[in-house]
């Protein structure tokens, strides 16, 4: 674990629905070291996915400061190219994160073409190999792939430009147990090979305990507690909400 790759300070995110203003994230601050796997866990509506939207540059209405490497963004500032090239995201639903009418090759080569990468074909074949997909999947459509294979493609897409930080939004919750195991193994292998930093959001304590070095527990838009490796192993905590969460998760 090196110095902080990602620093989030005083993050507040709000949504307006009609005339009502709803605060999804309140005053959240945390740091993620280079090479670390940091987890975010909490019930639905706690704001964990919203944080990912802000970090990936998709969400606009926020206040606070986000520093990634040497790039800083403040108060809803749009992400510049130098920022975006360092962070990528893997989405939850393997059935929804690939365009149904594009072949895998198109899905993977388009980002490369847009950024003027030279040998597109070679890079596409490289990432397919890295995620364990045979090259005959290259020209298939998403509906011809299984859930696990689609998620591998999503991971391949995230790796295309060698990002330093990969955001994982419940990457295995839509998958069967054995397929989940394969994907988690893949993520671990890639981390060892490439040294990527992961920010993993999940509601599954088993996945979090298996993958993460540290976990922030969120409730109603705030971080109530951060658990260390020891805490996860011993299932100890201080905040009552965390205790509730641990109790409800049948893995304890």
């Amino acid at each position: 674990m090196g110095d902080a790759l990602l620093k989030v300070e005083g993050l507040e995110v709000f949504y307006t629905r009609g005339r009502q203003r709803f605060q999804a994230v309140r005053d959240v601050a945390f740091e993620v070291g280079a090479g670390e796997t940091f987890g975010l866990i909490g019930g639905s509506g706690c704001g964990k996915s919203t944080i990912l939207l802000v970090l990936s540059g998709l969400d606009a209405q926020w206040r606070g400061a986000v520093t990634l490497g040497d790039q800083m963004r403040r108060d809803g500032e749009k992400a510049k190219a130098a920022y975006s090239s360092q962070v990528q995201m893997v989405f939850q639903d393997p059935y929804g994160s690939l365009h149904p009418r594009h072949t895998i090759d198109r899905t993977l080569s388009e980002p490369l073409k847009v950024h003027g990468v030279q040998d597109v074909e070679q890079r596409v074949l490289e990432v397919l190999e890295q995620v364990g997909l045979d090259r005959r999947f290259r020209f298939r459509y998403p509906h011809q792939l299984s859930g696990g294979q689609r998620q591998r493609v999503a991971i391949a897409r995230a790796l295309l430009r060698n990002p330093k930080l990969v955001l994982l939004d419940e990457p295995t919750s839509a998958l069967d147990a054995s397929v989940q195991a394969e994907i988690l193994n893949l993520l671990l292998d890639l981390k060892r090979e490439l040294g990527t930093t992961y920010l993993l959001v999940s509601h599954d304590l088993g996945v979090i305990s298996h993958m993460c070095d540290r976990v922030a527990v969120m409730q109603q838009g705030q971080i109530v507690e951060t658990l260390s490796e020891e805490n996860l192993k011993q299932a100890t905590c201080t905040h009552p909400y965390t205790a509730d969460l641990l109790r409800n998760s049948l893995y304890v």
Partner: protein
Amino acid sequence: MPELIVENLQVSFPTWRGDVTVVNRVGFEMRTERLGIVGESGSGKSLTARAILGLIRKPGRVTADRMTFDGTDLAGLDEKRWRSIRGCRIGMIMQDPKYSLNPVKRVKDQIAEVAMLHDCVDRKQVHLRVLEMLAEVGVEDPIRVANCYPHQLSGGLGQRVMIVAMLINSPDLLIADEPTSALDVMVRGQVLQMMDREIQRRGMGLILISHDLNTVARYCDRVLIMYKGRIVETCRADRLFEAQHPYTRGLLACLPSAATRGQRLSVLDRAAIEAEAC
């Protein structure tokens, strides 16, 4: 609870490559007990439940040596007789309440409809009963919830509403097909506990279908493990973690937890399982 007997159930669908059998020689018997069916997606567990309730339409084909509930043969029933069984003697709740509830009707009207289909009771009485039952399943503000439309309810509330709708006619058997997969982890435990409590209180049987071994181990008495349409193992829920079949052992071994931190998880060796299963 009257006995449900299933013997040699087969469900197949015709495809351009020939018939595909998705449920293969499944058989079990149950009375007042909580039976869990566990398997991955594609193992045929949901289709087994739907076959029992006669919900598989053409071109799917259902055959069984025997499929009886309380002596009534389920295989040859016509729609009229099915109506006296579905919702009345056997209830079913499915994964996502957003899709099982009619979006343009208020909750109380939907539940009342189910009640009145089977028991021509006065509407006011039925509404009172609905409010009573909503309170029983742990809804804090039954009047407000009863007047809501389904999209105004959270996942947990939606499933409670579904459970009320299915329990209002006091059926003998409840089939729950992944009832908590779409729910938040905090709510999951609450809904399962509530369901368990109601079932035990009413002396009903339960068939709980899930891909989650832990859920099934905790809320069932007996577990059937299905793989590619067949039952590969049957065991008592409290002995689930001592299961013998390579598939079950494989499923148990591939679960991530704090104990497996930093290690590669074992993955199912499907070749070995196929060899053993066939």
